[in-house]
């Protein structure tokens, strides 16, 4: 196909399912996994508590929980439910699983410092408020987009963790969330499910917040500690 032919395609031409099919994915996965699905949002609620601890073990646990959320969301929502109606979702799903495994393998390295209060509060706001976006599109409580199952909420919350990593690990971990943000935003726009655009928008807002709160150690050597070292004290 020549360039003119490619340019004649619109975003809508690439969407092969309707909004009802997509919105029902949230309700279907919640109904199928009830009541076990509650484990994921519960894990999401306690994660910042682990993440704020000074000891290394709880912080390892926080990152492991995030890894499990990515695996659950990737395999269950994307591969099993979304993939049959949208083949790129299957590819994303397996990539989510790989990223989740990576987070599990990284252990304590993944959270180099305790979560700050602004990050923890942002996290809680994300997993408590964002799930309602899908209910605004499909007025049914079963349609809640839960952390650990729904990719929009999972990605938006966990970018807060990834942004706290030193470069280049930070950007390695952020590559997939950013790709998903772009892909999902295009999908929601084409479907006309405008409330769901709140997921990618929230992801970008939270990323900016996290980058400001956790500047990379390479950019700001003092960020690892609130107190300057003795050799750097002003005379």
């Amino acid at each position, binding site marked *: *196909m020549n360039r003119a*032919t490619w340019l*004649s*395609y619109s975003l*809508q*031409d690439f*969407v*092969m*399912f*309707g909004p*009802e*099919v997509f919105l*029902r*994915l949230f309700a*279907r996965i919640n109904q199928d996994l009830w009541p076990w699905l509650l484990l994921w949002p519960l894990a999401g609620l306690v994660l910042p508590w682990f993440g704020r601890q000074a000891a290394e073990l709880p912080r390892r646990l926080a990152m492991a929980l995030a890894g499990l959320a990515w695996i659950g969301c990737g395999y269950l929502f994307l591969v099993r*439910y*979304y993939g*049959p*109606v*949208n*083949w790129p979702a299957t590819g994303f799903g397996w990539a989510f699983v790989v990223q989740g495994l990576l987070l599990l393998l990284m252990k304590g390295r993944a959270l180099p410092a305790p979560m700050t209060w602004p990050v923890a509060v942002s996290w809680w706001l994300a997993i408590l408020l964002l799930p309602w976006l899908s209910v605004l599109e499909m007025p049914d409580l079963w349609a809640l987009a839960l952390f650990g199952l729904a990719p929009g909420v999972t990605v938006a919350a966990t970018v807060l963790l990834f942004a706290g990593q030193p470069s280049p690990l930070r950007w390695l971990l952020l590559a997939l969330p950013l790709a998903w943000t772009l892909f999902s935003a295009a999908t929601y726009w084409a479907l006309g499910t405008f409330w769901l655009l709140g997921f990618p928008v929230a992801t970008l807002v939270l990323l900016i917040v996290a980058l400001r709160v956790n500047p990379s150690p390479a950019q700001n050597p003092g960020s690892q500690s609130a107190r300057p070292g003795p050799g750097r004290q002003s005379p």
Partner: protein
Amino acid sequence: MLELSRRRFLIGVGLSGLAVASPRLIAAGSPTGEQSFHSRPIPSTGESVPAIGMGTWITFNVGGDQYLIDERTRVLETFLAQNGTVIDCSPMYGSAADVIGTGLDKLGAHDRIFAATKIWTSDGSETREQAATSERRWGIDRFDLLQVHNLLAWQEHLATLKEMKAEGRVRYIGITTSHGRRHRELARVMETEPLDFVQLTYNVLDREAEERLLPLARERDIAVIVNRPFQGGSLFRRFQSEPLPSWAAEAGVGSWAEFFLKFIISHPAVTCAIPATTSVEHMQENMGAMYGQLPDASQRRMMAEYVRQL
């Protein structure tokens, strides 16, 4: 929830009895009862097919959602009850082929359809394999029509399709395009290859096919399936709030669905239009276009002019 009153119960029993006595009257859930419907001959054989078929792009791709699978089966049931036979799909349409297969199983309707799908792979050696996969998904032994999707690797696929037709593995072969793309290339294929069918986009606003492709199809005795008859639904979004023209009834048109569809199937080169829908009510409206008077050439010009002015 619906309350079952005595009156409703008696009406239901009565209708059930009628249905057993005359399945044709169920088809008469159609707006037109026992009227004859518009069909068109396939030029290469003279076999007739109903002038309205069913597309499945987007609408039948519902994955494993049992509720929506049942809903689509009702749409399929309505289509068949109103004398529809031509069902068109593609491997590109996600789970649509599986949903069609499930619906046909449930309705026991595999032998009541004209099964059309496409070959959609850039690997020119996968024609037979993909056709076999589609047969399995639909639950049929062979397709009536296999088409090369959007001219993708068409030389290789068409060569294999010609072999398959000679072997009796498929009854008709063809090639498709959509959205008005690559018409020049499609015309070249139509001029040089022995096609039974082409599929293209044609509707009251997208009329480029009238210039070259539709006359060429008549000249070369090629049947024409028309996709995107409602321009992906945008014709309804643009015009549904507008009144039908005062002369609509004279042209046999009672709704906007009939307006758009009758404009298409009244073109002498068109064999069949394939609107897609998720709604039983819309399917009934669509199939209504297969009945009653069709607009003549001057009325078709008035139809095109009317929407242009809107």
